[in-house]
């Protein structure tokens, strides 16, 4: 399930599976006996990135734990669409308590397992960006600080989708939400300081922190697997586009996530004990416009005419990520691609 060392030229490492790979080299999602931890019949919207990300991550954790896994879930879309009485889509032991306490609930589960000598059973906490970066932040930080044996997975769709697309502290600048209307000199969300949860997690010095997107399954699975190899607090932050909240077609979910990564707006990397150990390089750097334009939440940046100064500010954010995380290594066939992006944004 890890990323392959050998280049696989028909499809490289990007497809979910491949008949040409040895079974142990295939992804969890390629396995016909995968856990399908989040089963059919759930009520997520068409093309839901969170439903996809959750199954990817939890199935990978299931494989890593040999099926000995318990999940705690914050309130949010994932919880609501998966467990409306009388139907649950979860096939693993699962608990939902509150919006802001999932990290603590998971801590409690881990404590119980430890006391009972069930060290083989592993604990995952999962929440959306609201439950993670806002209301659940205190409990999460406490869990990190104590280094409780929990893998926390944040499914980041950059707003409160369950309540009707309101701004969270993970909402990107300029994005339109129900509480960041497109009026005034700074339409959409303000350019704040941001709240970089993976970095905050790293600042706790916990054993493992990683970011991933639903566009790169093998990377995501490798990270969950790596996370499961550690004991203590671990944090995996997965970008999961929301067709409804972002204003994209249901079949664009993966493409949009890919663009978020390829523009540098969502850096994909991993860190151990507070230090970055690996970054996923951009295959070919793309202008942020390619990412922004298909999304209705950014439509005001292009209509009635392009707001160049805003797009440029966003490009600067991407450029900063590319520089800060070393996201790009120039190769002969796309020399100058990065300069082209920089020239438009003098940064």
């Amino acid at each position: 399930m890890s990323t392959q060392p050998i280049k696989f030229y028909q499809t490289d490492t990007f497809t979910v599976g491949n008949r040409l790979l040895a079974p142990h080299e295939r992804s969890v999602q390629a396995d016909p006996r995968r856990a399908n931890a989040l089963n059919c019949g759930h009520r997520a919207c068409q093309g839901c990135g969170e439903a996809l990300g959750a199954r990817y991550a939890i199935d990978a954790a299931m494989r890593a734990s040999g099926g000995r896994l318990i999940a705690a879930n914050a309130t949010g879309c994932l919880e609501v669409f998966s467990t409306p009485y009388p139907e649950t889509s979860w096939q693993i032991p699962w608990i939902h308590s509150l919006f802001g306490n999932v990290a603590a609930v998971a801590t409690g589960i881990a404590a119980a397992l430890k006391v009972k000598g069930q060290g083989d059973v592993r604990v995952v906490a999962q929440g959306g960006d609201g439950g993670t970066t806002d209301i659940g932040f205190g409990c999460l930080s406490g869990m990190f600080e104590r280094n409780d044996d929990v893998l926390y997975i944040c499914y980041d769709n950059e707003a409160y989708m369950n309540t009707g697309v309101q701004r969270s502290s993970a909402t990107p600048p300029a994005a339109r939400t129900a509480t960041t209307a497109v009026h005034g000199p700074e339409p959409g969300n303000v350019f704040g300081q941001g709240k970089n949860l993976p970095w905050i997690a790293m600042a706790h010095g916990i054993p493992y922190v990683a970011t991933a997107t639903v566009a790169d399954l093998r990377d995501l699975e490798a990270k969950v697997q790596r996370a499961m190899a550690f004991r203590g607090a671990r944090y995996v932050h997965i970008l999961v586009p929301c067709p409804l909240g972002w204003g994209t077609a249901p079949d664009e979910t993966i493409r949009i996530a890919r663009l978020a990564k390829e523009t540098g707006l969502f850096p994909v990397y991993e860190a151990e004990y507070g230090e970055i150990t690996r970054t996923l390089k951009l295959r070919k750097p793309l202008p942020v416009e390619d990412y922004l334009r298909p999304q209705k939440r950014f439509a005001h940046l292009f209509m009635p005419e392009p707001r160049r100064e805003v797009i440029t500010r966003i490009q600067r954010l991407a450029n900063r990520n590319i520089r800060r995380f070393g996201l790009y290594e120039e190769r002969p066939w796309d020399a100058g691609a990065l300069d082209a992006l920089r020239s438009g944004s003098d940064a």
Partner: protein
Amino acid sequence: MLRQMEGSRAVAEAVALCRPEAICAYPISPQTHIVEALGELVKAGSLSPCEFINVESEFAAMSVAIGASAAGARAYTATASQGLLYMVEAVYNAAGLGLPIVMTVANRAIGAPINIWNDHSDAMSQRDCGWIMLFAETNQEALDLHIQAFRLGEELSLPVMVCMDGFILTHAYERLDMPTQAQVDAFLPAYEPRQVLDPSEPVSIGAMVGPEAFAEVRYLAHAKQLQALERIPALAAEFKRAFGRDSGGLVHPYRIADAGTVVVALGSVLGTIKDTVDELRADGHRIGVLGITSFRPFPLAEVRGYLERAQRVVVIEKSLAVGIGGIVSTNVRVALSGVHLHGYTVIAGLGGRAITRKSLAKLMLDAERDALDPVTFLDLDWDAVNRALQRERETRRSGPLAEALLRDIGMVGGRIA
């Protein structure tokens, strides 16, 4: 074994005898000595296996307890006052999920103004949260109630809150009978959860329930509390057989059989009340006492049974339902529906104000003469109140009420200015 010890220490040791497997602690006065003692017991290895988790808030404390309980561990926490309010969302959640967590509430007032002393405002704010709420009259009862609480909660799959008066009990040293481990083990079987997070038998706990079933879920929670009305006296009786003393139960009547006037109260103030009643009885006043141990479930039938033959009922309570008056008295009145008698609500002891025998005696005598206001504030400084009210009438913006009052009373006037 009889020992001279602090109430908090006693409760901690009693809890430890119950073999809790997860203890969540966030410090708040006057609960601190309890969790400190438990932390020490765990750290020293005398309470094992047990995870003692220093959490970052009361909200986390209750949440960790929820997780631990759902995963099959016997979970305990303790809090007070603001801490209880900070965990409220999780308090309701634990009850809704039916997780038999036991929590000590070292009762304390709620700010603002911030106040660390005892009253029942904190617990009373949670009277409808779905927890079983037991009020200890003495430290011996506090100790004993914790042992019963685990048994009761786990039988019914409901969380239990054991309330003990902050400082008055928690910090008081007295001679207490500490049971042996063997006694507690015989009384309290290992926790067998009704639902548990188990990979070999997975379930989803905490579903979203819509209008089609929500009322039924709520009714079932109510029905469980009604079952507790039967289990609480039964357990108290069993406890008496095992441990040789009366502790717990739904209510504690005292000299009530012939009483024309019955004083109703919860918690440690019952001791002072009983002393006062003894004095007045010596003078020929037919006054009795009804202590309520189980505030939730509220023992309507028992309360009615003990009160319906009295001429008057005086409910002395350490909490105030602002805008209406009493909380306990409101509940008592439900029990007395259709019964014609005089009912008085006495708000006393707020924020740690001492409730003296002298004041109580005067109160009871006034009550006997039916000379009490329906809602009486015991030992209220009317001068200070009236000055503040006067100022309010004169100036619409007269500044913070609490500070003005303190200045009027002259307690901290110099320092505040």
